[in-house]
């Protein structure tokens, strides 16, 4: 059985040589899912029948492009024609989209084979995947800990070798934080770089789709396939997409990397500080110049985010009213009662909480005090980064304050859960591209370092992350808990 953790280029070489077929790779994916997903619980839906049909079509054919014939999976908030798309919510439990997201169409056109849909916090609201309306996913490194979230299923599936890569979405850290917790690479592209057509909307001014992969090279390859303008998403930007592979030179001599003193001044976890210090040394050793920068409004980012995102969500989620998306409460007395009952039964606790916060922040009399103020703070956070990028090419930070926490540890207090996104949220508010790369183990659990770039400069983000990865041995490590070797 083929090992799906060897990297996309290796899988492609195998297919090209003819020794391995797409069917072998797809079968390997389902075999791995069958062997370990009862423990990890990364998948909500497995599309075995369709995947095998598609893989057989590919039989005996030389792969056209780098992703041709290679299996992948999608977070369950991306629409897949004919395949249930639940967004981790009971309210969409029966919803089968009549169309596919643009990212799905692009991967399909590139020859990719969809093997299933991945678990997530309901409507992408959460940082642990415990808010899934169906079941929690577990971290393959330690099944008693969370995989992070909201793209927890995607991170866990890639980390445990069930798929070579997956797509997630990132509104406040939902690709990068689970990637860090599960020891894989996670890239949030610039706002507008990847089409969101067919992505179930959470907070539309922040949401972005990106890859979770085993290596930085794989992240570059997948981004290449999904990036670019789409007439069906008016926020996707009509700019040329550079060749990301040519950015991976391994050379970062003279690159200026900013260390935000506002991130490192806080009482950082001792283990995290140690791996961050070690990572800085590696980057210096590679010839990068590390410069202190200031992001003075960082402490307000979380407050601003937890008004802006719920406000947008309260509006976006108004459409789930029991009319068009499958689920409807059955015993309604009239139309209003039907709305109330459908939404109250279909949405989980955290989703209701955010809808209520958002509705409140937008309601008459409170709009200026909360929502507008949050948007003004957003301006200040954006300017902080603009000022920093006058002096540096990238900003360096931990991806998350700690490694993965235990299941149930933070479910009773929403605010503590929110704090796990403190280093990722400012990046979404500013719309910037950022990557999380594995940078060490703390007590046996993976930690991630984050590199944040200028708008549309994914190339520099990827170049530095790749150089770091090549100089260390953290990437590609495999969790022992599910039969890998660390």
């Amino acid at each position: 059985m083929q090992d799906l953790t060897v990297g996309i280029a290796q899988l492609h070489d195998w297919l090209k040589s003819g020794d391995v077929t797409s069917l072998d790779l797809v079968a390997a994916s389902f075999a791995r899912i069958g062997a370990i997903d009862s423990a990890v619980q990364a998948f909500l839906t497995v599309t075995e029948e369709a995947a095998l049909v598609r893989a057989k079509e590919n039989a005996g054919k030389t792969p056209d492009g780098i992703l041709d014939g290679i299996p992948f999976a999608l977070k369950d908030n991306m629409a897949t024609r004919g395949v249930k798309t639940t967004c981790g919510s009971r309210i969409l439990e029966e919803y089968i989209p009549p169309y596919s997201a643009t990212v799905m169409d692009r991967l399909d056109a590139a020859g990719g084979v969809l093997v299933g849909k991945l678990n997530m916090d309901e409507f992408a609201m959460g940082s642990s995947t415990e808010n899934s309306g169906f079941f929690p996913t577990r971290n393959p490194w330690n099944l008693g800990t969370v995989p992070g979230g909201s793209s927890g299923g995607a991170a866990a599936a890639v980390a445990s070798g069930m798929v070579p890569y997956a797509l997630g979405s990132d509104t406040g850290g939902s690709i990068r934080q689970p990637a860090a917790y599960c020891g894989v690479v996670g890239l949030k592209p610039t706002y507008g770089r990847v089409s969101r057509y067919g992505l179930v909307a959470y907070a539309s001014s922040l949401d972005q789709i990106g890859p979770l992969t085993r290596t930085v090279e794989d992240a570059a390859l997948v981004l290449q396939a999904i990036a670019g303008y789409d007439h069906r998403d008016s926020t996707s930007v009509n700019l040329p997409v550079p060749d990301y592979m040519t950015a991976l030179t391994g050379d970062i001599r003279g690159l200026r990397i900013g260390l935000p003193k506002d991130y490192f001044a806080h009482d950082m976890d001792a283990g995290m500080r140690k791996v961050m210090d070690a990572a800085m040394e590696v980057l210096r050793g590679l010839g990068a110049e590390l410069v202190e920068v200031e992001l003075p409004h960082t402490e307000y980012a979380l407050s601003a985010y937890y008004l802006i995102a719920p406000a947008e969500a309260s509006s976006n989620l108004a459409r789930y009213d029991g009319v068009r998306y499958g689920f409807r409460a059955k015993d309604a007395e009239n139309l209003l009662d039907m709305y109330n009952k459908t939404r109250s039964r279909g949405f989980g606790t955290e989703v209701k909480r955010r809808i209520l916060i958002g509705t409140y922040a937008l309601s008459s009399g409170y709009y200026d005090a909360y929502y507008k103020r949050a948007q003004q703070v957003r301006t200040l956070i954006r300017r902080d980064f603009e000022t920093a990028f006058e002096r540096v090419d990238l900003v360096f930070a931990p991806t998350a304050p700690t490694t993965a926490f235990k299941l149930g540890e933070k479910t009773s207090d929403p605010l503590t859960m929110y704090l796990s996104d403190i280093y990722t949220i400012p990046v979404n508010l500013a719309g910037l591209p950022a990557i999380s790369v594995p940078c060490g183990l703390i007590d046996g659990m993976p930690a991630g370092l984050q590199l944040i770039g200028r708008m549309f400069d994914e190339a520099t983000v990827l170049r530095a992350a790749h150089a770091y990865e090549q100089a260390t041995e953290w990437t590609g490590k495999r969790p022992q808990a599910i039969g890998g070797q660390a």
Partner: protein
Amino acid sequence: MSLSKKDVEYVAALARLHVTEVEKEALSAELSRILEYAGELKKLDLAGVEPTSHVGVTQTVVRKDEPRASLPLATVLANAPDAEEDQFKVPAILEG
């Protein structure tokens, strides 16, 4: 800022959510804490700062006004909990 049970009831009605007495109790405490945290923003002097509503590139998106194929009605209505005569059906709004 704290949110009373009555406030929760009011906001829930705006959001078309039904909350039970027990939920009201918990939500009023949780939402108050979140709003208190959000209240941190009041410490900042924001006079003259423009709000940012989005960080996208400002671009005008236009296309030719040409008809394109839509999805077949049956496909669109396949997710309807209730449908009749090619329309989504909802419970009666008016009596009689």
